[in-house]
């Protein structure tokens, strides 16, 4: 299934969109926090885990998804949500903690929910994996052709919820795809010190489900592996696991001094920038000129700027709104 020019350009645009969003959030994040860094200060307070560098994974997988396909994500959720098709304004406003945000300011960067896109995420490692299984269970019970996807890191593959979820998905033959983003680290702990096998794809053996490892910097490779798994799930063929090898370009969270990195490692990976990889392919094919690339960048910059302006201009929730939404009715 060779990808068309349009498909490839759409993915290229998505890579740039995510990157532009993340890099801009990364800039705004430091507003008001310097010179003496105070995590609580500025327009975007709290922890900030950016997706820069891993864009090909979200993009390659979500290219196969419909708005009604459930997706669960993690503490590093922006890329997945953007690739799923979120309204950037509502998303950015949530990250700013504004009343106009996706969650009225209650969720924030790690807890973004968009029911129109069947998207959820959260700050507990492994917490979202069972939700994808449950979503797939709902899909199967209703006989629908939707597919649930759960994104999580290679660190999360060592937590019990991973094991329980894969086993449930397998015994019930559910339409769910588990996507492990192996960016080599869980905060400072390298995979080699945390995971007893080289590849989480091999762990599929423990559940009798197919597993495949792909180059997560190469959006086409991700797209192909994901297509196979998602199609299989849609046709009732059950769950799969995909491990995408990738790299985070900005540290675990903003402020991470990255003392644990071997010298030169990040620079090496920066050579494997997913945007450049696809961009070069497109250029070699004659499907993207430098001018077109610049235009895409400008378009995304404008989109993100618009989202930022919306977020900045939106009002904060009133303090007392904290008391709402604990229950639907009490």
């Amino acid at each position, binding site marked *: 299934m060779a990808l068309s020019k349009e498909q490839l350009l759409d993915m290229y645009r998505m890579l740039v969109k995510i990157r532009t969003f993340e890099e801009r959030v990364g800039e705004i994040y430091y507003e008001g926090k310097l010179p003496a860094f105070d995590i609580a200060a500025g327009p975007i307070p709290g922890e900030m885990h950016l997706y820069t560098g891993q864009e090909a994974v979200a993009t390659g997988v979500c290219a196969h998804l419909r708005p009604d396909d459930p997706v669960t994500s993690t503490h590093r959720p922006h890329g997945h949500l953007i690739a799923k098709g979120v309204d950037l304004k509502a998303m950015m406003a949530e990250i700013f903690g504004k009343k106009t945000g996706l969650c009225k300011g209650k969720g924030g960067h790690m807890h973004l929910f968009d029911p129109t896109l069947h998207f959820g995420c959260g700050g507990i490692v492994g917490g979202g994996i*069972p939700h994808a299984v449950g*979503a797939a269970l709902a899909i199967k019970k209703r006989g629908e052709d939707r597919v649930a996807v759960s994104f999580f890191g290679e660190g999360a593959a060592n937590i019990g919820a991973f094991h*329980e979820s894969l086993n449930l998905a397998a015994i019930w033959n559910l339409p769910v795809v588990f996507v492990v983003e192996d960016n080599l680290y869980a905060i400072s702990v390298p995979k080699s010190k945390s995971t007893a096998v080289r590849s989480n794809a091999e762990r599929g053996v423990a559940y009798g489900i197919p597993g495949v490892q792909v180059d997560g910097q190469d959006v086409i490779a991700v797209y192909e592996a994901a297509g196979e798994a998602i199609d299989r799930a849609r046709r009732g063929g059950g769950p799969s696991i995909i491990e995408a090898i990738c790299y985070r370009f900005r540290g675990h969270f903003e402020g991470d001094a990255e003392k644990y990195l071997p010298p030169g490692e990040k620079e090496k990976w920066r050579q494997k920038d997913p945007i450049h990889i696809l961009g070069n392919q497109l250029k070699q094919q004659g499907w993207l000129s430098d001018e077109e690339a610049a235009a895409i960048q400008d378009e995304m910059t404008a989109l993100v700027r618009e989202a930022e302006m919306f977020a900045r201009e939106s009002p904060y929730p009133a303090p007392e709104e904290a008391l709402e939404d604990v229950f639907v009715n009490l």
Partner: protein
Amino acid sequence: MAERLLTTSKAIAEAIAQEMERDERVFVMGEDVGAYGGIFGATEGLLEKFGPERVMDTPISEMGFIGAGVGAAIEGMRPVVELMFVDFFGAAMDQIYNHMAKIHYMSGGRVNVPMVLMTAIGGGYSDAAQHSQCLYGLFAHVPGLKIVVPSTPYDAKGLMIQAIRDEDPVMYFFHKGVMGLGWMTPNPRATGPVPEEPYTVPFGQAAVRREGTDLTILTLSLMVHRSLDAAEKLAEEGISAEVIDLRTLVPLDRETIVESVKKTHRVMIVDEDYKSFGMSGELATIVVEEALDYLDAPPKRLAVPDTPIPYSRPMEQFVIPSVDRIAEAARELVTS
């Protein structure tokens, strides 16, 4: 027409069955809920009626299947999930309190998690430290969970139907000693009148099980029965105890509590959960906050004295409030 009598466990199973008939989205999942019918009978007969697609036995994977319940509820289903004993919550707590309880809030009210998590509580039959706890106080402490603790067959059915229809996540705690099981120490009140047609019992309304004038006993679950038995004894001695069955801890019926204490001027909390940092302190504090001037004595607490539940009978009976110890504490309270 003669009243129909059911045990509490049959009342629960009937409630679930009727909701499954009414609403296709309702399904049941948990360990041994199928062919076994639930270790405490709460799902008895459901597999036969609804088949294995809607009554699903799960592997021993509490984090997985409770989390799957959350995911299914978000996608519009109405899961009724059984955690076999509340004591096992530690294997699944992340899903319960960080996800089931909080997703509605974190989403700014945009996502609902209409799910019932039912579980068995309580001791008194030498099941020791890991199979005898109540712990409703612990769950009531974390925001986002409705906490339902029935004591009678009638309430068990009505509260279960309410729980399933509720848009919020509900934790439903049934005490093994009120289920009316053939293999537990008999409890005559575990069988009682239960209307055949579906009905709801609203959350947040305590029931005055016995009226009295000398002291108020605030309690729930099996301890309602023990308190009523104690009240009977006390009546013979001329002490008139009012017994209030809280039925739900979240929402809590403060009004009924405060009204009663204003009338009796003395209050005792009888609790099968651990004493400290739990239900008994909360209720005592509420009474003091709202009716200090009416109190003739400090609130009294009778609860498990901050020990794990021991196995051996004499020790176990010592830590769990008994009819005699309730009566004795009530006597002390009215003469203080």
